[in-house]
């Protein structure tokens, strides 16, 4: 053996270990490695890591956990769980799910459309007032924003007081003063959804107003002046100038409001608790009830997954509507 190692040329292993060759090869490797590390360190990654860490811990990990739970028969207080498709199949087979999805659809569409339309209307009004150099536009914006600052659960309670059918219910009292018969805002199943939508729109409008107001601010006022000289009617100005400019802002607004509304939970919980019956029970509330009232953790996770899939699907559809240069 000693002989063999003395003849490096005959022993391939020894040749690899030969000092001259090693140093000649390793230096560039080390340099290359150091170069790659420097490249990573000088790139955006180190700066993104803290955010990635927080997002991963508080967003990605729970999603991952929810996906895992959806494929188990977990119950809230049972430690024994096993993999199973039962949660998903019972969710899909449930007759309640149809009602819940229909409620969710009605609630979401009405709320999103209402928040965008009302937000746009107020934003246009503020712009118009500013152009006419009216006073009080800042106060108006602040008041509208105040609604948004209120926590959703408080919003639900406030509207419950307003809609209340007891003698102190503000809206019914006002109606009574005007000689109109009081309305069963929350106890009548056919009115409850409308009431829930009103409470949601009232709170969410501020957000969409601010977003659209900011977008309106970026429109060159000279365009409206050019249109005025071209004798364009108000609707033409809106159609040819305002709306095309707002397209990106409207789509982004719609995506954000859609997600917020689909996940809306606290306002309805405080306002109606999903009732009467299941009249205002939407998917998020249903998932909450499934987990925390029926303790069916697996099924609740499956419902959450369904909510996630619906949100993602609708977001993709909306992104397709974005102007090409903003995608």
């Amino acid at each position, binding site marked *: 053996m000693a002989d063999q190692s003395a003849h490096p040329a005959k022993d391939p292993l020894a040749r690899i270990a030969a000092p001259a060759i090693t140093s000649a090869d390793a230096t560039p490797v080390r340099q290359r490695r150091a170069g790659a590390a420097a490249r990573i360190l000088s790139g955006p990654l180190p700066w993104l890591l803290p955010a990635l860490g927080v997002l991963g811990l508080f967003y990605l990990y729970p999603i991952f956990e929810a996906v895992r739970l959806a494929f188990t028969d977990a119950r809230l207080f049972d430690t024994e769980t096993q993999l199973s498709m039962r949660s998903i199949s019972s969710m899909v087979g449930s007759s309640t799910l149809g009602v819940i999805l229909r409620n969710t659809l009605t609630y979401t569409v009405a709320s999103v459309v209402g928040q965008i339309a009302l937000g746009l209307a107020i934003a246009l009004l503020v712009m118009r007032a500013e152009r006419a150099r009216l006073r009080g536009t800042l106060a108006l914006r602040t008041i509208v924003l105040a609604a948004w600052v209120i926590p959703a659960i408080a919003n639900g309670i406030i509207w419950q007081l307003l809609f209340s059918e007891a003698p102190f219910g503000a809206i019914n009292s006002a109606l009574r003063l005007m000689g109109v018969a009081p309305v069963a805002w929350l106890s009548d199943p056919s009115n409850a959804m409308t009431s829930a939508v009103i409470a949601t729109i009232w709170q969410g409008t501020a957000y969409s107003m601010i977003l659209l107001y900011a977008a309106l601010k970026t429109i060159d006022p*000279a365009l409206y*002046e*050019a249109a005025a*000289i*071209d004798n*364009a009617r108000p609707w033409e100005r809106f159609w*040819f100038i305002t709306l095309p400019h707002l397209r990106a802002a409207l789509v982004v607004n719609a995506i954000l409001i859609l997600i917020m509304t689909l996940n809306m939970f606290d306002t309805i919980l405080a306002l109606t608790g999903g009732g009467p019956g299941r009249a205002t029970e939407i998917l998020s509330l249903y998932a909450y009830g499934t987990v925390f009232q029926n303790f069916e953790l697996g099924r609740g996770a499956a419902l959450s997954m369904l909510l996630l899939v619906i949100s993602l699907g609708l977001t993709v559809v909306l992104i397709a509507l974005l102007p090409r240069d903003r995608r």
Partner: protein
Amino acid sequence: MGQVELKSIHKSFGPTAVLDDINLKIADKEFVVVVGPSGCGKSTLLRVVAGLEEASSGALLFDGRAVNALSPGERNVAMVFQNYALYPHLSVATNIGFGLRRAAMSRREKREAVERTARLLEIEPLLKRRPGALSGGQRQRVAMGRAIIRNPAVFLFDEPLSNLDARLRMQMRSEIRGLHSKLPTTTLYVTHDQVEAMTMADRVVVMNAGRIEQIGTPSQIYDTPRTTFVARFMGMPSMNMISARYDGDALVLPDARVPVPADWPERLGPWVGRALLLGLRPEHLSLRASPGGVPATVDLTEPTGSETLVYLHHGDTRLAARTPPDTRLRRGDQVHLDLRLDRATLFDPDTALALPTLPADPSKTGETV
């Protein structure tokens, strides 16, 4: 017809008066340029005529008919904006044809009108593009096309060339002028650029601090400024202003006595012994070969190729002289100047107004307000 008349127009934003007693009559097919420093109210004046701003008081007449109450769209004016204000989401063709939406024309007639306009402005190949895909000069043409196609009674231009580079500005200047001779239409053109005012206008309106300083043809404005403001504002370098006194037979300058033309003693009678401002364009100062005239010290020379501008001082007075291109002078050189007093304008330093008695030649008298 497109006769425009402004009768004592006032405009104020809150307590700030922006336009103060503006009187101006623009004849049909006339090209009038309003020029002045920024903030002088010239753009506001244009916007009042367009109807984008309402005059606080005064009457605005188109062909003798008051239009104060009409909306911009009803006034039959077309406007080219400083930043062009093209509709960014519409094609060039739609932008140009926008003003024809409600015209009593068939779709085909409208298309032909757009094509005719595009041909006139040489932008036919761009018709399908969006404004975002055009260069500054092309956008400028589209903006003009949008104005021309409606065949308005009055064209309004709000500093239309200020976003273009120098070469393109020069080219567009002559194109706008050429367009005006092809389609003679009353034009009110606002600019801060005195070269545009001098080269394009039939008549120039010089504004300062919300008031009209002088109205006149470019040569009237240049040769016989009515106020020291006009004298200083128009012309590059601006008019030399020399403190002087008339002692009965010569002008007494800080460091020289200059004999006056033969007809001055008669006219300057009341001004004997009083302080005056002698206004002289740089081209009316010339270098003397021999001593005499007005002594001055050279501060700086600027050879431009076709001429050499010499900046000097005489006592405390800074002067500029336009001299032949082969002038060779250095800082500190002592020179002697000849003043062409026959081309001078004299101002009263107290009122900043040109002396009413000068000049004598009625053809050179500026039309004043």
